[in-house]
């Protein structure tokens, strides 16, 4: 009835005015609203301070993300308009556990094999993965006199602690990537989108991976160099996920630029937005097909 509705409203107002935490009100916010800045702001408003202390991230990771921020946004924080990508969210995760699995061999250029566990719980259901990379930071103290060629072997498997593997074969994906880097490079990025895409899409939030590196000096450039004999260490990588947050609170530049100005467009065309293919290259494909459509 209207009367009981009014009473409920009064009770809710009284709860707010008395300074009680309005968490019960947050229960009514749907999943999409809970994904963004709103819960953090609600918490600030309800408890009247900046929230609980947070775990501090790795300083190198933070440095990388600050650089990324400067690339994507102006000093005032406005997203730059000359963008060529679809993602509006980038998340960087550092591994929560790391184990050395096997020792390396400097003579053969095999680096110690490591096992990493990434917890991706922060990804919400409205965030869709477009691209993912493993980010390695090259230690400043390591200097390369020549180009180094590396082969990365990566395997993703079910965590040992998982009981869900019972009754079915544990899955594992292997992946090989070959790349070169010289003395100017501070970061190495290994694209692992194809590996992570099915896992993140199926809401898997615990990623267990094993990584092997074999690195060799360029023998053509330095024939005197013995079989890649060099002292090289790679710090455990971070995992960067480039995502498209589809919630209403997230900024959709592509939508703003191409669709808001054309109100006459039909709903079918708008629906095709969510059906773009995966990856940055794919995003470019999507844009070009849109231009073809306009012509």
């Amino acid at each position, binding site marked *: 009835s209207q009367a009981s509705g009014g009473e409920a409203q009064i009770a809710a107002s009284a709860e707010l005015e008395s300074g009680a935490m309005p968490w019960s009100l947050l229960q009514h916010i749907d999943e999409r609203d809970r994904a*963004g*800045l709103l819960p*953090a702001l609600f918490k*600030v408003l309800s408890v009247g*301070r*900046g*929230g*609980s*202390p*947070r*775990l*501090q*991230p790795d300083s190198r*990771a*933070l440095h990388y*993300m*600050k650089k*990324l*921020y400067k690339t*994507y*946004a102006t*000093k*005032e*924080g*406005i*997203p730059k308009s000359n963008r060529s990508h679809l993602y*509006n*969210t*980038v*998340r*960087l*995760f*550092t591994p929560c556990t790391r184990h050395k699995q096997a020792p390396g061999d400097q003579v053969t250029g095999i680096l110690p094999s490591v096992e990493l566990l990434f*917890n991706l*719980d*922060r990804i919400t259901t409205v965030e869709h993965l477009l691209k993912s990379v493993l980010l390695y930071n090259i230690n400043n103290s390591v200097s390369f006199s020549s180009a180094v060629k590396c082969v990365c072997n990566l395997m993703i498997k079910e965590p040992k602690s998982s009981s869900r593997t019972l009754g079915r074969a544990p899955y594992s994906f292997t992946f090989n990537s070959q790349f070169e880097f010289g003395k100017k490079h501070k970061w190495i990025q290994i694209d692992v989108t194809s590996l992570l895409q099915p896992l993140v899409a199926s809401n898997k939030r615990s990623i267990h991976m094993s990584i092997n590196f074999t690195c060799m000096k360029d023998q053509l450039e330095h024939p005197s160099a013995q079989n890649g004999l060099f002292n090289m260490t790679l710090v455990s990588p971070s995992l960067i996920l480039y995502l498209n*947050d589809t919630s*209403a*609170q*997230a*900024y*959709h*530049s592509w939508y703003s630029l191409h669709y808001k100005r054309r109100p006459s467009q039909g709903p079918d065309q708008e629906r095709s937005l969510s059906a773009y293919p995966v990856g940055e290259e794919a995003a470019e494909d999507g844009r070009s097909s849109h231009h073809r459509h306009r012509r």
Partner: protein
Amino acid sequence: GQETVSSELKKPLGPASFNLSEYFRQFLLPQNECELHDFRLSFSQLKWDNWIVAPHRYNPRYCKGDCPRAVGHRYGSPVHTMVQNIIYEKLDSSVPRPSCVPAKYSPLSVLTIEPDGSIAYKEYEDMIATKCTCR
């Protein structure tokens, strides 16, 4: 007749006549009219700098001021706004006059440290007011 005219002239001038120049000034150079204002803040002032890494400063801006009686052209207000103004003036002053509110916003990129120590770059819609309207 002359008598009527002279008696009218002898009457004291009403307040409307005295305030004519003020009346025109209100239309030509409106004071305190609904418009955009700056409000620059730094996240450290709010003690949010422990979780918002960038930007350091933020100007959400805000809308403030009086809504004029004829709002259609300049503010792009709907007819409802005019109707509400008329209701306030002619029928019931307990009905509020139209409010000066943001009409357009721009997004903001934010770099945050999440509770689990991960770092998130996000672009949020509607974080900076860029245009005001009366509604």
